[in-house]
C-alpha cells in the first residue's frame, strides 16, 4: 500500500523524501499502525524512506518539480475493500482507499 504526504515540495522525481511542510511528522523511522473498523491493530511498522512522485500530470521541463512524498508500506493482513485507518504518532488518522486493482492508498490530511 502507499501512504502519501501531499506536500507539493519541489524535488527531483524519485529522490528520497520525508513529508514536507505540515507533514514533517511522516518520516523514516516514525511508527505507524493500521487499524480495522473495530479499532483493532492489524499492521504495525515503521515508515521507510519516501519517494518523490509528481504532484501534477504535467512536465514543466525543469529538474525539480512539485512532488508528493509517497511511502510504500506493507499491508499484509489488510483485506481489499475493508474499512481501515492508518495511524501515525501525529496528525489525524487517515482512511485507506482501495483502487480497482485492490491496492490501498492513504493520503495525509
Amino acid at each position, binding site marked *: 500500500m502507499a501512504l502519501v504526504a501531499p*506536500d507539493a*515540495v*519541489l*524535488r527531483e522525481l524519485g*529522490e*528520497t*523524501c*520525508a*513529508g*514536507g*511542510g505540515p507533514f*514533517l*511528522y511522516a*518520516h*523514516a*523511522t*516514525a511508527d505507524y499502525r493500521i487499524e480495522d473498523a473495530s479499532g483493532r491493530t492489524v499492521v504495525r511498522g515503521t515508515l521507510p*524512506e519516501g519517494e518523490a512522485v509528481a504532484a501534477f500530470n504535467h512536465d514543466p521541463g525543469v529538474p*525539480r518539480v512539485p512532488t508528493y512524498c509517497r511511502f510504500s508500506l506493507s499491508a499484509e493482513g489488510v483485506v481489499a475493500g475493508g474499512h481501515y485507518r492508518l495511524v501515525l504518532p*501525529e496528525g489525524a488518522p487517515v482512511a485507506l482507499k482501495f483502487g480497482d486493482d485492490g491496492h490501498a492508498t492513504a493520503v495525509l490530511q
Partner: protein
Amino acid sequence: MLAALALAGCGGAAGDGGRSTLPGPLPAGVRFAPATSTAVAPPFSLALLDGTRVEGAKLWRDRPVVLFFFGSWCSRCAKQQQELSPLVSKYEDVVTFVGVAGKDKPPAVRAWLEDHGVTYPVGIDGSLESWRRYAVRQPPAVVLIGPGGTLERGWADGVDGDVLADSLARMVER
C-alpha cells in the same frame, strides 16, 4: 553572554552539540566582505542539546552563521553533513555553524551527531518556529547569514559543498 560564549571555546566532542561546541573569540586579522544582501535574517532563539540557549542575533553579531536544518531520520542530511564537515573545520571560530533539528528526539539527534562527527552546536526546535521563519519545508536546508544579520543565501534543498565554500570564501577575508 558574549563573555560566556568566548569562554566556552570550541572543540566540543562529536555528539555533544552543547555549550562546549560554541565558537571561541574571533581570530585576529579576520575581516568580512561587505554584505551582498539587504535582507534581514529572521531572529531565532534555540536551546542547545545541553539546555544552553542561544540567540541568533548574538551568534551573527560579529561573524557569519550557517544554519543547517536537519533530521536524524533524514538520509539526505547525512550527505549534506559530509559536505559541511570540511567547512566546519576550515572556518573554526570564523563561521558559526548551527544545527537545527525539528521533529526529533534528543537521543536520536545525539546518536546522529556522534555517527556523523558533528562538532558544532545543535538544538531541537520542536515547535518548528525557526523552520517556519526560514521557510524550511523539509530537511536538509541550509541558510547563510552574514555578520550583522544579513540574510545572504538560503538553499531549500541543501547545498553542494563547493557552492557554500565559494560563498564563504567571498565573505571571509584573512
